[in-house]
C-alpha cells in the first residue's frame, strides 16, 4: 500500500477563536461567523480588521472572532464603524447586525452609512425575529408570523409589512454592493460565502458601502426544530425576501472569487 500523507481538509479558520459557541442548537449565526472568518483568512485581513458587534444574540461575536473588536449600542454599529473607519481608513471595518438592530432601532444609521458611501462591510442577519429578547416581532417578521408580541400572527393592518432592507439600500448611490443570500442549505451557504468575499473586496477596493443580508434561522424563538427551521427559511422567508443581487458595483464585473 502506498503511503498517503495525512492532509488537513477542514480546520478552524485562524480568524475564529476556540471559544465554544453560545448560540442555540440549529442557529445559523455560527455559520455566518465561520464564513466571515474564512473570508478574512483568505484575504489575509485578520490583523488589519476591526469588527463591530451589535446588541442582539451576536452581542458576543467578539468572543468568537480572533480580531480586534468593539461592541456597539443597539442599532448604532454603522455609526461606530464610521467613527473607526474615518480615523483609520486603511483598516478593514465590518459591522455584524441583526434585523431588529439594523432595520428597526438602527434604521437611520444604516441608511446614512450607505448614503455616505461609507467604505464598510455590513453583515445583516435576518432571522425575522428578535432573538435575544425572547422572540418578539421584528421589522422583518413575516405577515401572519406568530411572535411573543404578535401572538395572533403579524397583522399587517395593525403592524405593517416586513421591511426589505437590501432592496432599499440598493437604491442608495453610496452603496457598492447589496445582495441577499440564505444559509438554509450547503449550496446557498457556498453562495453566501462568495457574497461575503465580494463585500470585503468592495471595501478593500474602496468601492463604497457593502451589505450582505443572510436569511437565518432561529429555532428557539420560532418554536421549530433546526431542520424545520431551514425549511421555514426556504418555503416561507425566501418568497418574502427574494435572494439576489440588488446592486453590484460595475468595477466588480468579471471578478471571480
Amino acid at each position, binding site marked *: 500500500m502506498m503511503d498517503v500523507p495525512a492532509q488537513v481538509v477542514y480546520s478552524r479558520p485562524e480568524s475564529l477563536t476556540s471559544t465554544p459557541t453560545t448560540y442555540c442548537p440549529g442557529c445559523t449565526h455560527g455559520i455566518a461567523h465561520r464564513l466571515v472568518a474564512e473570508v478574512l483568512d483568505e484575504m489575509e485581513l485578520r490583523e488589519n480588521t476591526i469588527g463591530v*458587534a451589535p446588541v442582539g444574540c451576536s452581542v458576543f461575536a467578539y468572543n468568537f472572532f480572533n*480580531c*480586534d473588536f*468593539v461592541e456597539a449600542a443597539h442599532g448604532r454599529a454603522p*455609526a461606530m464603524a464610521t*467613527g*473607526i473607519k474615518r480615523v483609520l481608513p486603511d483598516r478593514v471595518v465590518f459591522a455584524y447586525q441583526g434585523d431588529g438592530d439594523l432595520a428597526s432601532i438602527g434604521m*437611520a*444609521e444604516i441608511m446614512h452609512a450607505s448614503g455616505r458611501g461609507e467604505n464598510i462591510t455590513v453583515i445583516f442577519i435576518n432571522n425575522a425575529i428578535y432573538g435575544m429578547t425572547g422572540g418578539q416581532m421584528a421589522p422583518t417578521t413575516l405577515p401572519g408570523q406568530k411572535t411573543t408580541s404578535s401572538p395572533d400572527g403579524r397583522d399587517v393592518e395593525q403592524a405593517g409589512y416586513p421591511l426589505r432592507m437590501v432592496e432599499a439600500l440598493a437604491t442608495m448611490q453610496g452603496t457598492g454592493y447589496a445582495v441577499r443570500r440564505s444559509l438554509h442549505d450547503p449550496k446557498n451557504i457556498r453562495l453566501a460565502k462568495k457574497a461575503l468575499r465580494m463585500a470585503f473586496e468592495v471595501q478593500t477596493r474602496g468601492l463604497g458601502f457593502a451589505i450582505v443580508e443572510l436569511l437565518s434561522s432561529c429555532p428557539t424563538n420560532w418554536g421549530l426544530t433546526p431542520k424545520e427551521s431551514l425549511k421555514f427559511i426556504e418555503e416561507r422567508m425566501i418568497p418574502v425576501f427574494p435572494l439576489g443581487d440588488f446592486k453590484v458595483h460595475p468595477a466588480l464585473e468579471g471578478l471571480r472569487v
Partner: protein
Amino acid sequence: MARELLEGNRAMAEAAVRAGVQAYFGYPITPQTELLEWMSKRMPELGRAFLQAESEVAAINMIYGAACTGVRVMSSSSSPGVSLMMEGISYIAGTELPVVLIDVMRGGPGLGNIAPSQGDYNQIVHGGGHGDYFPIVLAPSSVQEAIDFTVMAFDLAEKYRALTFVLADGNIGQMMEPAELPPMQPVDRPIPDWAVRGAKGRERRILSSIYIRPEDEEVTNLRLLERAGKIKENEVRYKEYFLDDAEIVVVGFGTAGRVAFSAVRAARAQGIRVGLLRPITLSPFPSEAVAELAAHAQAMLVVEMNSGQMLDDVLRPVAGQIPVEFYGRLGGVVPFQDEVLTEIERIAHHPPTIEFDPREKWIRRMKEILN
C-alpha cells in the same frame, strides 16, 4: 500668541484643533453650531476626520468608535442634542474611553429656546445616562477659559481614561471677547495600549461596556468609583475672589458666576464684606472649599441660571452651619448684575435664618420680582 477678538464657539473649536483632536462628529444646533462649522473647514484642511452626522445619536456613536482607536476625539452639542446622546455617553463611560464633549446649554425643558441657560447641570454633572459613572465637568466663564478648559479637557480625559465635559452656556458660546489661543500641538501622540486598531503582531483587543456577570460589572463600577475618588483628590479647581474676610459668600459658575462677580465688586464698593467662589470643576465639586467657607462666613448665596441644580451640591457640605440663599433665573433668562447685587444687599441688611428652604424662599421672591 497674541490676544484676538474671538467668539466662544469658534475659539473652543480651534482650541480642540490645537490640542490635537483627530476626529470630530456633530450635528447642528443653536447656540453651538459655529463650533461644528469651524470644524467642517479646519479638520479636512488638516487631514483630520470631520463628519456632520445624521443626528446626535449617530454623532456620539461615531465618537464612541473613533475613541476606541486611541486618538483624541470630540463632539459638541446643546441641551436637546446632549439629551439625545445620553445612551452613547453611558456606553463611553462604561467602556472607560477618553472623550471630550462640549455642551453649550440653552433654555429648556423641551425645545425651550436658544438663549443661555444652565439647565443641564444635573444631566451632565449627576449623570443623565444610565448606570453609575462620574464624568469630569469643567465650567468656563469667559472665552479665554473656554479655550483653556477645552485643552485641559483633553489632558484630563486622557490622564484618567474619563469622559470630560466642557459645560458652557449660550452666552459663552456666542459672545466675543479678547482671548489667546494655545500653540498647535503635534497630533502624532503615543497610542494607548488598549486601543483597537487591528491585531497586527499582538493578541486581539476588545472594547466593550458589557460585563454580563453582575460581579464583573460591580468590579467595573468600583473601578470607576475609585477613579472618581482619585480625580477628586487631584483635580478640584475653583476661583476665589475677595473671600479672605468675606461674611457673605456667593457661589456661582459659568455666566452666572461672571455676573455674580460684577455684583460682588459693586457690593464691595458699598463696603459689604462679600466674596465669590466660582467652581471650575463642577465634577469633582469643590465641596471642601465650600465647607471651609461655611465654617467662617455668615451666609451664602448661590446664583444659577436654573432652578438651583448646583444648590444641592452646595447645601451638602454647608451641612446647616450657616443659612444658604438662592437666586436663579430660568428658561434662558440671564440675571443682571443689579439683581444679584440686590440679593447681596438684602442678605447683608437682613441676615437670613436657616429655617427656610432656600428654593421655596426664592420662588416666593421670584413671584414678587416678576409681578
